[in-house]
């Protein structure tokens, strides 16, 4: 029983970790706390659903379409909404992301109707039995793909020159500008990556459940995940995501299904009170 719960917790947690990673990339680059991250995951799921069931495209082409559309969406958000608000207060930026998620939800419901759709993909759908442990192949694929994406992006940030420039920009905008880095391009790239990671997470969430705008609340679990892991820390986002997935499954099966939110948010509150910089973050030192 416990092994079963832990496995599905870790599998779901990997998806959360992926969405949270996208969130952390955006936050590190532009210091925008993106409340629309859950909605970006929903958009990804709908992009895939559109390509597969409306256009009738084959799966690889549909995935490519989803990736391009998600990146374009992220870049458009940065150009149209975030750049004009540069240098403005935190509330303005937070509120613009909230308003964005309201608009995206309304537009999706206007185009596709409020009822959900099923997502039919050739991803494996069976169950592997390992002793008493029943492993859903879909969970396993989701976890593996999430880990692969995380590894790819970790390598991207670590080994490529663009990744290096992005890290430099995130560390210090001014120093990056002085060194001749086009900071706006780097930030757009960060938004594109953030949106893409959310979309991949959304694809799996839509596959595990049903594609509807209600997926937003699941995608929004990336927020506590990121903060528990540490806002400034990329590995922290992944670990936070795993932790949130684990807590969700354990509390749902051992306490009650309704209790998941309160357990996660109580942990968040405790972390904020005791270690506001999160498990992996660096303590922020203010200078007067």
């Amino acid at each position, binding site marked *: 029983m416990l092994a079963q719960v832990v496995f599905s917790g870790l599998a779901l947690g990997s998806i959360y970790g992926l969405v949270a990673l996208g969130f952390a990339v955006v936050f590190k680059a532009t210091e925008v706390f993106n409340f629309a991250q859950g909605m970006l995951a929903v958009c990804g799921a709908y992009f895939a659903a559109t390509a597969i069931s409306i256009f009738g495209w084959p799966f690889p082409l549909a995935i490519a379409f989803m990736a391009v559309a998600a990146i374009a969406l992220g870049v458009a958000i940065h150009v149209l909404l975030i750049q004009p*608000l540069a240098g403005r207060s935190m*509330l303005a930026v937070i509120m613009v992301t*909230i*308003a964005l998620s309201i608009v995206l939800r*309304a537009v999706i419901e206007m185009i596709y109707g409020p009822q959900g759709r099923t997502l039919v993909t050739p991803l494996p759908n069976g169950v592997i039995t390992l002793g008493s442990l029943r492993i859903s192949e879909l969970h396993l694929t989701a976890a593996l793909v999430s880990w692969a994406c995380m590894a790819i992006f970790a390598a991207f940030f670590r080994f490529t020159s663009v990744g290096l420039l992005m890290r430099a920009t995130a560390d210090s905008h001014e120093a990056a500008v002085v060194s001749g880095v086009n900071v706006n391009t780097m930030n757009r790239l960060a938004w594109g990556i953030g949106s893409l990671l959310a979309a991949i997470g959304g694809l799996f969430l839509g596959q595990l459940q049903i594609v509807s705008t209600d997926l937003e609340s699941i995608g929004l679990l990336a927020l506590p995940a990121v903060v528990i892991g540490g806002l400034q820390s990329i590995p922290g986002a992944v670990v936070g995501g795993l932790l949130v997935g684990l807590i969700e499954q354990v509390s749902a099966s051992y306490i009650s299904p309704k209790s998941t939110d309160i357990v996660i*948010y109580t942990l*968040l509150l405790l972390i*904020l009170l005791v270690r506001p910089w999160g498990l992996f973050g660096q303590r922020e030192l203010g200078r007067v």
Partner: protein
Amino acid sequence: MSDALYSKPRIVARVAPPLNVRLWRLLGVALALAFLAYLPFVLAHRSAFGFRLTNAELLNLGLSQINLMMIAMLGALSLNYLTGCAGLISIGHAAFYATGAMTAAIVGTQWGWPFPLALAAAAVTGALVGIIAGLPSLRVRGLYFVLSTLAVHHVVIFVFLEYQFRYFDVVGVPYDPPRLGSYALNTSMRWYFFLLPVVALVYWGFKNSLGTREGRAMRAMRDHELAATAAGVDVRVLRLKAFAFSSAIASMAGALQAYFMSNVTSEAFGLDFAIQFIAMIIIGGLGSLGGSLVGAAIWLLAPSIISGLAPQGGDASGWMGTLLVEHKPQLVQAAFGVLIILLLIFAPGGVAGLGRKLKAMLSPQRAR
């Protein structure tokens, strides 16, 4: 923080204006009062000065919408006091509404206390919960504090849900018909004349509290915490006080809303409910109490005005017509979202900021 989002304090010497200005002002107040006193009769009888008015001419408005708007005004005022004046961003305002609704249920529905006492109890509990919710502000700043209010929101809503299912069921928590002594609040008209002075009183209270030493200290704290501390302001105590005051009013508004609806479920106080108040104060203008009234009015009344226009749009063929008829709620949501985005980008001061700009353009003395 020098940000155009907040209203800048104006330093104007307090000199009594000339007599004719005072007379005009008096006339304006009298006209406004007459309008507010006559409005419910217009809306209730659907006629003004003996002339019948159609639904479209009344902008599709009804009296209970006006009442709901006034309850929302209390929430917007208290949030603007906290966020716009004290600089503490909170997305936990729905939690205080829920606190008020729950207190009213325990005290009013279960113990049978009269309505005014239930309201007072809601305000007291709200202040206590507000102090607890404000405690993280002693330790964390900015973004982290916003998140702690989000966490508080989830905790309070969970408690409400558990309470609702333990003592009542899925249908929601019922409330007795409220009465003030022998004045039963059983019609929209009576609610209107009860809520109008309440809103005026709360507005006046917030306004005056901003003028006191602590009110000015609070705005100093919003603009520059260190400078305020250096000037001898104890920001920790001040934050908790602002939180207690604001959440007491929000909690009272929650109790009022619960009595007005006469039945409340935990879903009524979701995150969307909290976000709508932030939207109201952004539309109205952060830091402007009058702006919060305008923001609440726009947020609550605009949807039905748009719906009122829908029948005309329904005749129009093509996708506009189907959009208006089939997806009205989504259309309203999208319009509001776009409105907020546009305001944030192009008019950060909200309606109040636009008003100030207009005034500066029209008054010859202040022209620069």
